[in-house]
Structure formats: structure tokens, C-alpha cells
């Protein structure tokens, strides 16, 4: 990477930071400091705006860089990720978006606590939301660190550390000053930038192959060295049965996890009605679907034009496939190539920054609205919830920076898969049960959260990710017990089972009137804020 790339990429990225900081100041110019404003942006975004923001929250660096890289290296097996990420939106649209908008105020715990004894349920749902958010944050931080060292040439640990710290500091500024309104606008700007870049690259690829997809696929297969096997499943997950079960586990986590991600759930509260929430999700399904179809083209194009060997040489996990593709599409060793490369790099940074801000906001809402409100001593002087949330954003920023520095050698896609698995095990069962099960009780709710959360985390600790294999976090020791890298296959059913078990064993009689209230409110929107 020459100096030209770096300077231009840095300039473009500084431009993005300047614009977003401008948005943050402009938005917070006449804020009132109410919780409604801070967590939900005043609930007055239009479905289209919110649809772009949801898409912006969802299209993380793991999709733009990670998935295209996996397709470039493993062909069809990378495509399996894309399908999982996308089909997951049906769960959100059909079962979650409208009902959650109608029942809750700011967080996942609002929906569950409406029917139950409030304190234990809030503490449980708040804890699991914060855990999921921190895992997702660490993934993005690690991605930012690897990206900068790849793009700026040097792999010095100091440069990586400073990038992670810088990203963390910026996200704290966005969130604590601008709240949901600034975060939403940043997501919208980022979604537009990312989508236009992807469209431009796809058009260039199609021009290069004269619109002939067949030829694109054949040259990718040819260049990969695997022949037609490159276009069929099995290169990455086709080995032994452990690898196959691992993929099924990941597939389950991807499709069920999206509906339990706190930063996606909190987006539904930024629009006025359930109908608007539905239309935001429809917008985002259109945008995300188009984006993922284009990433498939870009992944195969990277295999065909750059070649898996060159991609692997630049980054073993394939994360640089798209920047390398951009360099070639613009014309290698020419101004066009330099410009395109710099744009892609800057957009990737912007993506990470925006996603990180969205997650921080959602988790600070969980800390302040669920945990602080339930755990503070009743006699203690009550601080305003928004002040607590701002402080929480700083605290979460510090934790994420620290963990991001510790975990810098972990694979980004793996961390994202883990966050999805924990969300699907701990958040989805309790959410679905409280929306759809008449007899669900407080004990069932608490057991559903912990019964998914604890096994998911424990299985990861005992998996080859942490110990017992050369690629683990601690390669020196071996307390590996569970063979799969992704816990979803076991922990998601456990979450559902624990919720059912807790309910049938609890002496509490479910409150008929409260269930009626939840159901009527969920389906009609009566009494929604």
C-alpha cells in the first residue's frame, strides 16, 4: 500500500468524522434531555429514515469485509452466511417488530416486564442485553484494529491500539452528546455511503464481465484452483461432522439472533406507530437484501479478479478482499485505483464507527433504564436516567476498548456469530414467550434468560475457541470440552426449554388481566407511547 492510498483514505475518513460530529452538535443544539429524546430520538423518524438506519445498524464490517472475504476464499460456503443474515429479517418482521413497538418503551426488558414482577425480569433482560452488546462491540473494535493495520501498511501494535482507542472515544462522544437522534442520522449517512459504494463496485464488476454472470462464476472457479467445487458447498464446512454441525449451529444462531439484538430492537421505538415500525423493517429488508446480493457478486469477483491466493497473502481471514478488488477495478497503479481503494477503506471505517455508536446507545439504555433503575437503593438520591445513560456510554466505551485490545487476535466473523448465538439463546425465547404464551410467568422469564445466557457463554469458554487448539485464545492450556465453535445448536433449545420449565414449575398463577393487556396492546397499539 503506497502513501497515496493512506493519505486519501485518511482524508476521506476525517471528512466523515467531521460531518458526523457536525450532525451530533447540530442535533444536540436544542435538545431537552428527556429520556424519550435520548433513547428514542423523540419517536418521530419516518419509516424510510428508520429503514435506512436499521440497514445501517445491520450492515457491519463483518458483512462488507468479512463475508465477501469468505466468499472469495471458500466460494459457496461464504454465501451460506449471507443467506442466514438475510432470512433472519423474516423473524423480525413477522413476529417481533410491530408487537415490540406497541408494548415497549425503550428496551427489550420493557416488553417482558409489562407482564411480570418487574425487578428480577429487568435485571435478567438488562444483563443479557448488555452482554450481547459488549460481544458485538468487541467484534467491531477488533475489526477496526485489523483494518487500520492492513490499510496503513504497518502492523505495529501501537497503531492498532490507538485506532481502537480512537474509535471508542468517538463513539462515546456521538452517543453521550447526540443520543438516538444523532446516532440515527449517522446510521443513515453511513448506509447511503456504504450502499452507493457497493453499487458502484458491482456495476464496475458487471462492466468488466460484460454483464455475463456465468462467465464471472466460471472465472472465479477457474482462478480458485478448486474448479467447479468452488461453486458448491463443502470447501469450508464439508470436512468432518464437527465442522458440519458447527455450520448448522451457526446457521441457527444467525437466523434467530437478529430478532434478539438490542440495538435492532431499540430502533423500532424511533418511529411513532407499529405500522411505521413494519414499514421501516420492509425498507430495511429491501436495502439489506440488495446489499447482500451485491456482496455475493463482489465476493466471487474478488476470487475471479484478485484471486484467492493474493487475498490470502494480504490477510489470512480474507478481510481485505473488497479493498483489493477496488484497487484492481479502478485500474491497478493508476489514480482511479487509488481513489477507489481509498473510498472503500474510508467507507469501511465509517461502517464500523456507526455500528459501534448504535450498539453503545442500546447498551447504555439497558444499563440506565433496566439495571440502574432496578438495582439502585431506594433511598439513594435518584439521578436522572439520561445522566446515568450518558455515564454508562462512557463506561461501556472503556470496557469495549479494553476487551477490544485484549481480543485483537480473534476472528471478527466468529465474534459476531457468537453475539448472534447469545442473542438467540438469551433474548429471543423470553421475548417470544412473553408475546405469545398466555401462561408465561416471572420465574419462566428469568429462567429463559439465564438458561440461554449461561450455557451459551459456558460452552464458548469450553470450546476450541478459548483453549486446546493452535488458533485458540489461550493455545497453551487445554480445558476444551465442547467441540463446536458456535454454541447455538445447544444453547438456543436450552433457552426455550428453561423458559418452559421455569413456567410449569412455578407456583405463581399467571395474571390473566396483564396477559390481556399485553395482547391487546401488542396487536392494536392501544396505550402505546
Amino acid at each position, binding site marked *: 500500500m503506497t502513501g497515496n492510498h493512506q493519505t486519501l483514505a485518511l482524508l476521506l475518513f476525517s471528512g466523515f468524522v467531521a460531518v458526523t460530529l457536525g450532525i451530533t452538535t447540530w442535533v444536540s443544539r436544542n435538545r431537552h434531555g428527556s429520556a424519550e429524546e435520548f433513547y428514542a430520538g423523540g419517536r418521530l423518524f419516518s*419509516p*424510510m429514515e428508520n429503514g435506512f438506519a436499521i440497514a445501517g445498524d445491520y450492515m457491519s464490517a463483518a458483512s462488507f469485509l468479512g463475508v465477501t472475504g469468505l466468499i472469495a476464499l471458500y466460494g*459457496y460456503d461464504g*454465501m*451460506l452466511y*449471507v*443467506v*442466514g443474515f*438475510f*432470512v433472519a*429479517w*423474516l*423473524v423480525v*418482521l*413477522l*413476529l417481533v417488530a*410491530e408487537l415490540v413497538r406497541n408494548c415497549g418503551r425503550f428496551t427489550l426488558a420493557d416488553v417482558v416486564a409489562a407482564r411480570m414482577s418487574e425487578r428480577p425480569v429487568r435485571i435478567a433482560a438488562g444483563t443479557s442485553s448488555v452482554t450481547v452488546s459488549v460481544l458485538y462491540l468487541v467484534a467491531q473494535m477488533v475489526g477496526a484494529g485489523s483494518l487500520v493495520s492492513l490499510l496503513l501498511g504497518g502492523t505495529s501494535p501501537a497503531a492498532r491500539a490507538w485506532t481502537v482507542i480512537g474509535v471508542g472515544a468517538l463513539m462515546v462522544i456521538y452517543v453521550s452528546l447526540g443520543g438516538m437522534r444523532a446516532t440515527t442520522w449517522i446510521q443513515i449517512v453511513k448506509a447511503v455511503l456504504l450502499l452507493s459504494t457497493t453499487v458502484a463496485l458491482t456495476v464496475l464488476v458487471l462492466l468488466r464481465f460484460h454483464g455475463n454472470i*456465468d462467465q464471472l*462464476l*466460471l472465472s472465479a*472457479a477457474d482462478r480458485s484452483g478448486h474448479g*467447479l*467445487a468452488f*461453486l*458448491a*458447498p*463443502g470447501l469450508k*464446512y*464439508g470436512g468432518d461432522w464437527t465442522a*458440519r454441525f458447527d*455450520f*448448522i449451529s451457526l*446457521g*441457527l444462531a444467525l*437466523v434467530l439472533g437478529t430478532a434478539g439484538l438490542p440495538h435492532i430492537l431499540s430502533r423500532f421505538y424511533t418511529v*411513532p*406507530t407499529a*405500522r*411505521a415500525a*413494519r*414499514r421501516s423493517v*420492509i*425498507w430495511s*429488508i*429491501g436495502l439489506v*437484501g440488495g446489499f*447482500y*446480493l451485491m456482496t455475493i457478486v463482489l465476493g466471487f469477483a474478488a476470487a475471479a479478479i484478485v484471486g484467492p491466493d493474493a487475498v490470502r497473502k494480504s490477510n489470512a481471514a480474507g478481510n481485505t478482499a473488497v479493498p483489493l478488488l477496488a484497487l484492481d477495478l479502478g485500474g491497478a497503479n493508476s489514480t482511479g485505483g487509488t481513489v477507489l481503494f481509498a473510498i472503500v477503506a474510508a467507507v469501511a471505517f465509517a461502517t464500523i464507527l456507526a455500528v459501534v455508536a448504535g450498539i453503545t446507545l442500546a447498551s447504555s439504555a439497558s444499563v440506565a433504564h433496566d439495571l440502574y433503575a432496578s438495582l439502585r437503593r431506594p433511598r439513594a438520591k435518584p439521578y436522572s436516567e439520561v445522566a446515568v445513560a450518558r455515564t454508562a456510554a462512557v463506561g461501556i466505551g472503556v470496557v469495549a476498548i479494553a476487551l477490544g485490545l485484549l481480543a485483537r487476535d480473534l476472528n471478527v466473523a466468529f465474534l459476531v456469530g457468537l453475539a448472534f448465538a447469545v442473542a438467540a439463546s438469551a433474548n429471543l425465547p423470553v421475548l417470544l414467550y412473553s408475546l405469545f404464551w398466555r401462561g408465561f410467568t416471572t420465574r419462566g422469564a428469568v429462567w429463559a434468560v439465564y438458561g440461554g445466557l449461561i450455557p451459551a457463554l459456558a460452552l464458548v469458554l469450553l470450546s476450541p475457541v478459548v483453549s486446546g487448539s493452535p488458533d485458540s485464545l489461550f493455545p497453551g492450556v487445554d480445558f476444551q470440552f465442547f467441540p463446536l465453535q458456535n454454541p447455538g445448536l445447544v444453547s438456543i433449545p436450552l433457552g426455550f426449554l428453561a423458559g418452559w420449565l421455569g413456567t410449569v414449575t412455578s407456583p405463581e398463577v399467571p395474571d*390473566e*388481566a396483564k396477559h*390481556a*393487556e399485553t*395482547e*391487546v*396492546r401488542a*396487536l*392494536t*397499539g*392501544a*396505550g402505546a407511547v
Partner: protein
Amino acid sequence: MRYHDPWYDALASGWGELDGAGVPAPEVPAARREHEGRALRAADVYLEVQRSAAFQEVRSRYLRFVVPAVAVFFAWYVAYVVAATTAPGLMARPVAGAVNVGMVAGLGQFVTTFLLTWAYARHARLRRDRAALELRWDTQELTRGVRGGVS
């Protein structure tokens, strides 16, 4: 007085709902008429509404669409993932040119997702939105009546 409600503004148009062919579903009876002249406690309002024929109708319209839809797309997705991991031979069978069964199935997942999204939006707009909105107002009127105040 009239309340501003964005649902009314939004009923006319929407992305993915561009077909004009649909006809709104038949009206369901309003929940309010069934209770007129009866005194209710605040907590009972929701129970009463839940038991009303209007609400039962809205709920069954929602569930009758959503339950089969979720079952179908989830089974189709799991079948796809399991087939991709356990039967790579089948997925590698060529269909046309470089395109094989696996590619078609993967794109098929995209197509079914888009189609279900469209069908759900259409179903909700034509068969649920109007009735749910009426119920919403009736419920809020009842709650307000119980509290004894004006708002």
C-alpha cells in the same frame, strides 16, 4: 376533539405495497358497542376488549397468517442449511452453465424472503390495520371512560 394519528396518514401508500388490486377486508364489529352502558374497572377494560369478537377476529387473522408463514420459511431455511452441509453432491449438480442447484436454492431463499415480506405487508394492510386501529381507539376511549376524565 380529533386526535392526530399517523396511521391515518400512512394508510394510503407504502413501499412494497404498490399493487392497487387489494380490497380492504370486511369490517369487523367494533368492541365499544358491545359494552356501552356498562361500568368497567380499568384492569377489566383490556380483558373485556380481549374477549370481544372484534379483537378475537384481529388476533386470529394475524395468527392465521404468521404461524404458517413462520413454519414454512423456517423449515425451508433449515432444509437448505442441512442440505448444504450434508448433501454437497446434490447441491453441486449443474442446472445451467456455471449455475448449480446450490446457487438456485440460495437465490431461492432471497426470493422467498422478498415474497413473504410483500405478502405479509399486503395482508397486514388489507386485513388487519383498519380493524386494529378501530380497536385501539375503542380501547383508549374505554380506558378514558373508566378513569373518569377527559384527556
